[in-house]
């Protein structure tokens, strides 16, 4: 059996009704993913290439390199089908569900990227699919809601709580607990009960497998640092996994600093999503990990301008790597993320996801920490964020934002 723990993190804290499914999944993970039974991994890799568009390029970023006096390479997961790294995992899990003989898929989504990736993978593989999404996120990421529906998925609105990812996960677990016998829950990040964290990591590890080769080819040497934004941590673990053994490579997990790192216990709100940087050990959604919680253990409402980072927990393996000091957690707040969004859009011609923009915010504030060669993971594209960015930028006085008036007034705009 694969080990379910990373140090003291991880485990399987789920209702009994789900345990048999989780054991079945563990078995399937070992056979198909680890042992490539029935050629599962071959088929997965082939589909990632043909349907997903892998390998994604590693691009030398000319303006940023000059600005930061370092060779900045961008791992272009935004070019993956669906527009984010999320497809690596979604395709792997939906395919696995098929191998397992399941005939229905449920998933939760925050930014809607995992939901769209899952809906696309499910359509591609002919699987019925339902996606749970918080009401607030639905309003922040409407294009993704449309995309899921167009791919034939049902999108179920979750209205409890603040209506973000945490509530969507709760609701999906409830659906799964109800329909566990024929349904697979395609979890969207390296979170949840074992074997999800290792399995999702393995599906996402293709990012660093490719990047490690590509940067050696391009720069002729390993990078000094790798940067990735961290919500649940799937793109982080994907971008880091291949480098964890390369001890000289600094790994920065960039969390959402939101509007503040202070916590409002009274209101139960942490106006950030920095569970690695400020969180506390606890149990949520099936695993022991670092959490944003109050002193009683109630989970806090997190906040980030980017839906995809807006989560009170984080993957247990990442929490462990932080404790081991292998990964350095850092934070970038809403304002700096928005500025980084505009900067990348204008200077490199890449409109990043708001999630991704956090990684660039860190590079901008701390160029001296990048070393001579750095890889920044462009976890997704920003098409889904256009309206949010315009709205959020208008509220602020951002140095890097284009003049927003044109969006409001002007002929036909």
């Amino acid at each position: 059996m694969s080990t379910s723990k990373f140090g003291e993190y991880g485990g399987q804290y789920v209702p009994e009704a789900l345990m048999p499914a989780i054991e079945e999944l563990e078995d399937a993970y070992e056979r198909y993913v680890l042992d490539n039974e029935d050629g599962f991994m071959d088929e997965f890799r082939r589909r990632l290439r043909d349907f997903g568009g892998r390998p994604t390029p590693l691009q030398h970023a000319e303006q940023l390199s000059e600005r930061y006096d370092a060779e900045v390479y961008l791992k272009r997961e935004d070019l993956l089908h669906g527009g984010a790294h999320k497809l690596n995992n979604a395709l792997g899990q939906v395919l696995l569900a098929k191998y397992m003989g399941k005939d229905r898929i449920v998933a939760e989504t925050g930014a809607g990227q995992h939901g769209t990736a899952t809906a696309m993978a499910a359509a591609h593989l002919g699987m019925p699919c339902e996606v749970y999404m918080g009401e607030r996120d639905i309003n922040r990421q409407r294009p993704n809601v449309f995309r899921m529906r167009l791919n034939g998925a049902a999108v179920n609105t979750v209205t409890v709580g603040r209506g973000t990812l945490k509530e969507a996960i709760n609701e999906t677990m409830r659906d799964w607990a109800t329909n566990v016998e024929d349904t697979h829950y395609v979890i969207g990040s390296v979170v949840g009960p074992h074997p999800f964290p290792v399995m999702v990591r393995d599906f996402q590890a293709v990012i660093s497998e490719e990047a490690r080769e590509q940067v050696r080819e391009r720069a002729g040497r390993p990078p000094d640092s790798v940067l990735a934004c961290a919500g649940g941590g799937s793109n982080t673990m994907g971008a880091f996994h291949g480098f964890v053994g390369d001890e000289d490579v600094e790994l920065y997990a960039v969390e959402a600093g939101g509007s503040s790192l202070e916590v409002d216990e009274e209101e139960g709100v942490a106006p950030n999503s920095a569970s690695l940087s400020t969180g506390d050990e606890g149990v949520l959604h099936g695993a022991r990990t670092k959490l944003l919680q109050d002193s009683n253990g109630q989970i806090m409402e997190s906040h980030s301008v980017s839906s995809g980072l807006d989560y009170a927990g984080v993957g247990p393996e990442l929490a462990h790597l932080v404790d081991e000091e292998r990964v350095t957690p850092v934070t970038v707040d809403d304002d700096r993320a928005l500025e980084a969004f505009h900067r990348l859009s204008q200077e490199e011609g890449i409109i990043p996801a708001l999630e991704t923009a956090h990684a660039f915010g860190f590079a901008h504030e701390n160029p001296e920490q990048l070393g001579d060669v750095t890889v920044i993971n462009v976890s997704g594209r920003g098409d889904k964020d256009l309206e949010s960015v315009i709205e959020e930028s208008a509220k602020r006085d951002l140095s890097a934002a284009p003049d927003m008036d044109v969006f409001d007034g002007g002929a036909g705009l």
Partner: protein
Amino acid sequence: MSRIGEAFADGPAFVPYLAVGDPDYESSTAYVEALAHGGADVIELGLPFSEPVAEGPTIQGAVTRALDAGMTPGKYFEFVEELDVDVPLVCMTYYNLIYQFTTDDDERKGPRPFVERAAEAGIEGFVVPDLPAEEADPLREACDDHGLDLVFIVAPTTEGERLERIMDRVSGYVYVQARLGVTGARDDVSDRTDDALGRLEDWDVSEQGPEARRTESNGVPKAVGFGIKTGKHAERIVEGGADGVIVGSALVDIVAEGHREGRPAEAVAADLEAKARELKEGAASGYAQRVPEPEHT
């Protein structure tokens, strides 16, 4: 045998659930006491957790109301201490609240400080829906040290080795989940209840497997929950072989309705007591109709 075990000794037990602090501390006290008056044999007292993943909309609502009214683990224990009831009390909550609880004397994370405080307050057992047998050893040990029961849920999907693993660790009663899904009152009784009871029965009579708790307690009683709403349901379930019935959402519905309509707490309490009586009587009548079973040692 624990007090909880004893509650199942003569006839089927009626085990109601309410979320503590729903909709406020005082009303909640009255409601729990009403359940005792109505014939409860054991009461499950929910300590509200912000992420009730195993609950349906009804109990989610109760949890939200209780949290909004300021319920905390500390207040929960005071509540238990102040309760004037003479039935064993089971604390139902999620693991993070147990795990996080510390006291000024004991700042170690982990289940011990919570269990200690619970025992002190008068709690006699636990049900923790997000704690499967695999992760339960620390809590089981703490419970053993303080003489508390740890109830496990057996789901319709629980079979074979898993069932054994649970039966090895369970004490007080086995919570037989009548159907897949989350908590919530239903209009029908699940077919899967009979299956589950059957499976447990097979297991009970089988001689194989570790004997630990089971032999000691001469078979842990089986209480069925998830979806039971009426006296008729209770009757059918006990007739089908259950040693007890667990009812949550049907009672929380009464609390929620009273709250919505602004009714006085005494009126709601009276309704709860009447509902408890209906369920208790249903269970008794089911027992009476039961084909006598061969006793097993």
